[in-house]
């Protein structure tokens, strides 16, 4: 019996693929209530996930953008020499922590400040290049806002060589950094939770689908079909339904997203000056993620869902 079994197993695996594909197609065709239910669940779950993914990607993009605009100012003593200036500049430019450095002379500083005062500008009308009280400075963009403090320490090490003091919106930067950390954690948590929920919904649907067909599975077992043979069409069906769901969900999200972007016209109405992530890049990430996810869930969900009913 054992030998016969093995021989049969071998030959049955050879012809399996064709039958499996055919059975799967027929099953999808004939069980259309259940297929529809599964696909729609996948779509629903993925749309929710997709909305969150897009929000997360954009929030991250916006924060990164805002961060990249954060500046740190190194003010020079009023009597700095050109040599000192160059030493400092070179040191700053060599540092990995720093993305770029611009020099702002005392004249430029006064001019900028006057402009920024707007209505109060006349207050400064008494000053000119002769008695300019403003200090010259280096305006520094750091690579990572977390390093602000380190850059400050670096700059202060040139205290003997012309650096007067260093300023950056300390509280503002700190708030932003922790806000960023917060949104990062939050979006990871939400993504994980939503993934679990949607995996669960899909798994649930497949389980009910299999449950509704438990009699069928029982009959297959009695006719002598192996578990692998019974499982195969379910898994293929699950995978296909998952992929179909992924594609439909993607199309729905894509159309809606571009539509909304069109309405907004790139104008984010945000009180900060920041731009969204490139929609095409977002969509690329999304379809990749969706296909992987839909197919995976469909396949794995089916395997687990059918397991219980194979014990006959």
């Amino acid at each position, binding site marked *: *019996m*054992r030998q*016969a*079994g093995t021989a*049969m*197993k*071998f*030959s*049955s*695996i*050879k*012809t*399996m693929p*064709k*039958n499996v594909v055919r059975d799967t197609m*027929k*099953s999808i065709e*004939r*069980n259309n209530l259940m297929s529809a239910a599964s696909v729609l669940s996948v779509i629903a779950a993925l749309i929710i996930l997709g909305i969150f993914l897009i929000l997360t990607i954009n929030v991250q993009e916006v924060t990164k953008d805002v961060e990249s605009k954060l500046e740190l100012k190194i003010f020079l003593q009023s009597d700095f020499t050109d040599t000192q200036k160059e030493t400092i500049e070179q040191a700053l430019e060599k540092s990995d922590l720093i993305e770029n450095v611009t020099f702002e002379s005392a004249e430029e500083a006064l001019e900028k400040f006057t402009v920024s005062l707007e209505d109060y500008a006349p207050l400064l009308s008494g000053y000119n290049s002769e008695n300019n009280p403003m200090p010259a400075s280096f305006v520094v963009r750091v690579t990572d806002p977390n390093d602000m403090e380190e850059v400050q320490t670096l700059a202060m090490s040139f205290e003997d060589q012309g650096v007067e003091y260093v300023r950056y919106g300390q509280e503002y930067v700190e708030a932003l950094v922790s806000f960023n950390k917060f949104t990062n954690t939050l979006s990871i948590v939400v993504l994980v939770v939503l993934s679990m929920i949607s995996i669960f919904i899909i798994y649930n649907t497949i389980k009910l689908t299999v449950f509704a067909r438990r*009699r*069928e599975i*029982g*009959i*297959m*077992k*009695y*006719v*002598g*079909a*192996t*578990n692998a*043979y019974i499982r195969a069409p379910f898994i293929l069906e699950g995978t296909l339904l998952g992929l179909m769901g992924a594609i439909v969900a993607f199309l729905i999200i894509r159309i809606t997203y571009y539509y909304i972007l069109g309405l907004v016209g790139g104008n984010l109405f945000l009180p900060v000056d920041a731009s969204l992530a490139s929609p095409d890049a977002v969509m690329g990430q999304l379809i990749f993620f969706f296909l992987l996810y839909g197919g995976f869930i469909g396949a794995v969900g089916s395997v687990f869902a059918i397991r219980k009913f194979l014990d*006959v």
Partner: protein
Amino acid sequence: MIEFKNVTKGYDKNKSNALKNVSLFIDKGEFVFLVGRSGAGKSTFIKLLLREIEATEGSVYINNFNVSKLSKKEIPFLRRKMGIVFQDFRLLENKSVYENVAYAMEIIGKSEKQIQKRVPLALDMVGLSHRMNHYPHELSGGEQQRVVIARAIINNPSILICDEPTGNLDPETSYEIISILEEINRRGTTVVVVTHDREIVDTMKKRVLTLEDGILKVDDATGRYGYEV
């Protein structure tokens, strides 16, 4: 071929056992009727052969293999050796008559060509070639029963087990079915038939096993529907 050694089977809830210390031997190529009143344990006997359930005590052997020692993975291969006709006809609702019969060939890896040749022959044997593309719910009770029989014999099993194969059939069709079973038996297949049809049992003059309340009361080689004696 088939051997029961002191087999007892009890279901949890029941005080009394469904089979009580049953021992018997059925040789290769035999044709055996299994009779007994409702609830006597006939279906239990068959479920033990299929390893759908396991004996509480004793052991069941098929081809000298101890059935209860088979691993889960081996059960499908045990079942492929047997053709089975269930008491409540069990067809795949989503497959047509043709596909239901073909399915049994597909799982053992028969080629499309072989399937296309043999399925119509088997359906013809049970008189249903004209119903090939119908679905089970479009068939009468007796027609469904016959599809199950066609599926059971399609792979030339070495044992054919039938639980009430003619329960829902008119006498004429019943005799046709029984003669099909006889023909299959003549080609070397061991056949075990559970039936309540006294007429058939008495006419066929085959070996008759009679169960009464789980006990094997009569084992009569001369073939009489026995338990009323």
